[in-house]
């Protein structure tokens, strides 16, 4: 790992929280407007990739805390689980269930389509980072 550029490092440190918040915003907006888990996950992955480029993949992994592969697995489970909720409490697999009590300020109503999107977010983030980190570490 060669010494990184100060400009890049500083910029990335400032951008990381902004990008992560933006990715969550995209995720949340996804149900009724353009956005969603896929784009959100990509933006989050881009944020972590920038960290990996400026400070090395090791540092990015430490900030992420979870292993990318494990994140993928969890995401798949969350998505599949949201489908099963529809199967158990509704009529069909993947049916949207919006419980009345599930309401958070700012975010709004929470239902299985939203949790499905969260799963997608995690899968995309995990997949993109696994690929990116592996490529960087191969060098």
């Amino acid at each position: 790992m060669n010494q990184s550029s100060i400009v890049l490092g500083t910029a990335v440190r400032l951008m990381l929280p902004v990008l992560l918040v933006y990715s969550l915003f995209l995720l949340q907006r996804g149900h009724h407007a353009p956005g969603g888990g896929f784009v959100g996950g990509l933006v989050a992955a881009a944020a972590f990739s920038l960290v990996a480029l400026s400070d090395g993949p090791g540092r990015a992994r430490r900030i992420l805390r979870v292993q990318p592969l494990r994140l993928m697995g969890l995401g798949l489970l969350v998505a599949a689980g949201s489908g099963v909720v529809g199967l158990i409490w509704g009529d069909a697999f993947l049916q949207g269930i919006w419980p009345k009590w599930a309401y958070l300020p700012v975010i709004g109503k929470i239902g299985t389509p939203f949790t499905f999107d969260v799963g997608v977010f995690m899968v995309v983030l995990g997949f993109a980072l696994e690929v990116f980190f592996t490529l960087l570490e191969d060098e």
Partner: protein
Amino acid sequence: MDTLLVLPILIPLATAALTLIAARALRIQRALSFAGMASLLITGVVILLHVDEHGIAVAQAGGWAAPYGITLVADRLSALLVTAAGVVGLATTVFTGFSLDRRRERASFYPLLNVLLMGVCGSFLTGDLFNLYVCFEVMLMASFVLLTLGGTRAQLEGGLKYLILNLVSSAIFLTAGGLLYRAVGTLNMADIAEQVAAYPDTGLMDTLAMLFLVAFGLKAAMFPFFFWLPASYHTPPPVVSAVFAGLLSKVGVYALLRTFTMMFTGHLAFTHTVLAVLACATMIAGVLGAVAQMEIRRILSFQIVSSIGFLILGLALMSKIALAGAVFYLLHNIVVKTNLFFLAGVIEKLRGHGDLRRLGGLWRERPVLSVLFLVSALSLAGIPPLSGFWAKLVLLRAGLEGEWYWAIGIAVVVALLTLYSMTKIWALAFWKDAPPNEFAFTGRERDVREKSARRAMLPVVALTVVTVAIGFLAGPIFEMALATAEQLLDPSQYVTAVLGGVS
């Protein structure tokens, strides 16, 4: 009901997720994958029994009615194939644990295998053309990584050919799907079947049929698009070849069966003549390749191509008995082909390679392995009373009844040449004495390989038992195949089941 049809997709998905989470612990991954595949197999059997008793089962995922929602349909064909996928998946999981090197096994092998199975089962069950495309892509992603796992030069070369050809196929599939959607305004397969039958412009429908033929023919390795298969299937570890040989190319055949028994049936004289000619060309091309090769897995790869030809011939003849023969042959071929690749894997484990010129003496050294190989090889070649014989017999009879004498002539010649290529493996690898300067493993390496080969025999024995059972239970299984063919020939059953008779 809904639950039952979702399970073959949900189980591999959940297994893939759990094995990803347990990325570090190989034992847990193995156990999870085993449990997942076993439950998939059980689910397949339950669906089969259900469909056999109550007719075609339909589930609308998402709760939207067809033709707008995500439709899952299981008729007899789908149920049989899901069960077969369970068998192959289970055997593959066991074989992997005993034969694959640790480095590859650790590198997300089990998650990929499960994602592959999810795509395969999804393709068998979906009642929607676009979801079929999605499942194809899921399979393509998983299979490409499986093919190149480990990243040797040969693997990357084979993988590139595989990827490019399959991407072309996907692009054509997508184009054809888009054009069809523009013409008939639906992607639900049952709805398409109705709309296409009523569509005034038959020329357009014939063109679309040919586009789908090319797209699925590429996936199934049909003539003239077969060359990618023998160029890539022998490069990855044997267990990957086995699951590809058993399931992947069969999905293409399944898609052809669906398309040309249900959607494009208006102009049989044209579409099915094309199919018959291509089927014969596929058989010839495959078997000639098999005869010319000198490496076990290359020979087997070319034989996949020729067996695809047999299957498509059954579809082309389009009579009840011919389709039954094709279904029977499909089931037999899934099991036998997987097993033969397993056996090739065991041989490669013992000797370090699969080159017939440098092999020999296996009969003297390993009588059990030899007998197991002989059973599968003779079954594939079509020697009574093994399963392949019945399959070919039925197809030949169907051809005679339909008076397709030239196709039957070709099929007989191809069957004989298949027997010859199998005999070649037998004579060179098992019968002849080991070449004097043959390289042999020694010491610890030898012990490790011996032990692993012995254990890997477990799934081989299991699949051989299944093969023999298919041969001896040919009667009841053929009854089942006939019932399946009946369903295929009467698409109105499928349409009514999906659309509920209101349209």
